[in-house]
């Protein structure tokens, strides 16, 4: 009896879903390779929670993007590359895929060839290969807002601003403590370049994965008496760095964290050792921004909020997810303006990303003033000149302590192009032109 009762309910639910699908025939789909369990689950639940919260906001408040409902489904990756690829293979046949957003360097690397063949955008907000910024070689990859080289430049510019100008960097001693992984090593050459350009002394010290022991590294740092330590960490490496710094007598307010060392999960376990620690970010944290408040009111008010723990609303990863949602949705909106208010192909959404220009006025109109600055993506610049700001941990919350800072894009671009052109040569890729970028596959 119970079994048949369940069966009947399931049949009704299926009919309802099919009916709903029929009503909302135009649907744009986001396949989500999320990670809600495993070592990096805290970041995954925050980021994908924020992303889904924003998609829900658009559906509830606006009925979708110009009538096209936003849909998504999740596949658990545990941040493992093979599981990420498996989820990709499982979800890629769904219709109306707008873009992939794995939030994982490893998974993103493994997908580059696949998404290029499938002609669907791959978004690697704040991370990924630096040379994917060059849209001439990587037409479908978008390291939106910040690539690792821009991050490096932003951090050096911030240190310079604290010292009174770039000319004051000469003779300063900076140590970069980096995670022993391809991600951690990505910025080694650019720090060397900036060291030569501005005349500061530089040491780059590796911490083996996962980074739960750093006594040797911090004693070495203590011996060098640096003016600043840049923390390019990930996961458990970050709080351990802060605690070991305290143990070896290095002041937290002279440690500058990179964009993956800037969350609450990085500082809370370090306790008092994290007070005064500063980190770069592309999006501010907190709930005071209109779009976040609207999510609280509309989405959580409707019982559809994605975060189980509501105290995490407005946290660094949650806000990053929201900003990621804004960028994805606006790319779809821009593409719709050209191709029509309907379900778009991946290549059409790619065109939308390549015309994603949100100036501060548009950002304000989206309810995100001060949450992030602006973005200006083009067919050959897939990063979009994101600005950065710096936040300092006071023991309870992050406080913004700088203006929006622009990385030195002009300095970085030739290095990026050199790397991407070498990649193109190695892979036999034809360098795209603006005309190529405007040729769009619409079915």
């Amino acid at each position: 009896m119970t079994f048949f009762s369940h069966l009947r309910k399931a049949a009704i639910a299926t009919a309802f879903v099919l009916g709903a699908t029929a009503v909302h025939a135009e649907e744009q789909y986001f396949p989500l390779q999320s990670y809600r369990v495993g070592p990096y689950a805290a970041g995954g639940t925050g980021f994908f929670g924020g992303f889904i919260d924003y998609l829900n906001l658009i559906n509830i408040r606006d009925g979708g993007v110009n009538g096209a409902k936003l849909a998504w489904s999740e596949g658990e990756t545990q941040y493992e590359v093979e599981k990420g690829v498996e989820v990709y293979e499982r979800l890629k046949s769904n219709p109306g895929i707008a873009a992939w957003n794995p939030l994982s360097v490893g998974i993103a690397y493994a997908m580059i060839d696949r998404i290029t063949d499938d002609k669907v955008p791959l978004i690697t907000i704040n991370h990924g290969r630096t040379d994917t910024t060059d849209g001439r070689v990587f037409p479908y990859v978008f390291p939106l807002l910040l690539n690792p080289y821009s991050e490096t430049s932003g951090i050096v510019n911030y240190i310079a601003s604290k010292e009174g100008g770039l000319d004051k960097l000469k003779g300063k001693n900076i140590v970069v403590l980096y995670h022993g992984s391809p991600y951690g090593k990505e910025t080694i050459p650019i720090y060397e370049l900036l060291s030569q350009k501005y005349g500061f002394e530089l040491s780059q010290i590796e911490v083996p994965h996962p980074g739960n022991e750093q006594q040797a590294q911090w004693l070495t740092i203590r011996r060098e008496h640096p003016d600043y330590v840049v923390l390019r960490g990930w996961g458990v490496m970050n709080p351990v760095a802060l605690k070991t710094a305290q143990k070896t007598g290095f002041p937290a307010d002279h440690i500058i964290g990179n964009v993956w060392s800037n969350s609450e999960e990085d500082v809370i376990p370090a306790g008092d050792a994290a007070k005064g620690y500063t980190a770069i970010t592309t999006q501010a944290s907190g709930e005071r921004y209109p779009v976040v408040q609207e999510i609280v009111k509309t989405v959580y008010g409707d019982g559809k909020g994605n975060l189980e723990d509501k105290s995490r609303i407005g946290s660094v990863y949650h806000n990053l997810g929201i900003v990621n949602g804004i960028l994805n949705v606006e790319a779809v909106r821009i593409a719709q303006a050209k191709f029509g208010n309907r379900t778009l192909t991946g290549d059409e959404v790619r065109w939308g990303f390549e015309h994603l220009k949100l100036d501060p006025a548009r950002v304000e109109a989206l309810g995100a003033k001060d949450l992030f600055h602006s973005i200006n993506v083009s067919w050959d610049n897939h990063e979009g000149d994101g600005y950065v700001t710096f936040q300092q941990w006071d023991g309870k919350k992050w406080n913004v302590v700088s203006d929006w800072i622009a990385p030195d894009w002009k300095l970085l671009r030739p290095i990026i192009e050199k790397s991407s052109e070498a990649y193109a040569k190695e892979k036999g890729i034809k360098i795209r032109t603006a005309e190529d970028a405007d040729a769009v596959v619409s079915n």
Partner: protein
Amino acid sequence: MSYYDFLFVIEVLVGGLLSGVMYSLVAIGFVLIYKTSGVLNFAQGSMVLFAALTFVSLVERGIPFALSLLITFAVMVALGFTIERTVLRPLVNRSPMTLFMATLGLSYIIEGAAQLIWGTQVHGLDLGIDDTPFEVGGILISSFDLLAAAIAAAMVAGLSAFFYWTRIGLAFRAVADDQFAALAVGLRLPRIWGTVWTAAGFVALVAGLLWGARLGVRFSLSLIVLKALPVLVLGGFDSILGAIVGGLIIGASEKLAEVYLGPFVGGGIEGWFAYALALVVLLVRPSGLFGQKTVERV
């Protein structure tokens, strides 16, 4: 070598020795189980995670520190006896590889259960121990690490006394020497194994609290087994003293290697250096520095 350089060597050495004690804390849990049942319990790291996560979650729900500690210990006792009943007993007399694979599976189950019950959030754990360093003769020493070393020493002393001067300890040693002979003289193997897993659970709790206070309580806490394995190879799988000495050697040598050899090979070598050292010892003394030599009739 200048006086400053000499001081620096001592500082690295002391830091390494204190880190080694932390590795020993985890290794002791392995030794306890291996000593009495011949099982290399790969789930020890997960037990550390489970204990720390349970404790911190209880504290965060407003339960007093001491009561949380007591409840967590009770949970670890229950876990130990459950493992004995549901995993070890059905696999009695199976090969060591079968038992090892069972603990490998168990490790994933415990990790999954910990996250299912308590969630995946990262927690800070404040034990109320000041971690600001103090200076002795120009060398900075962490008060937290010193206290951890004292706790480890007390635990080793307690366990040694337990093994040598109590009836149950005598029974443990009898089982470790020969399970069949122990059974023949009337020792109740399941109860002894259950008790040993409880003791390992207690060690996991202590290690979980100290490591959790250092790293934060998070999933990667279970990865600290990777630090304990070379300690076990070096010290011997069945020697508590070996776990301590092995920890000290591994801790000190990996730190010295990182500081003085690392720069010549690009740095970041301490992750594998401990394993390289353990491999060398394995080649020379297969049962480790303090492990019991196995003599078999062929």
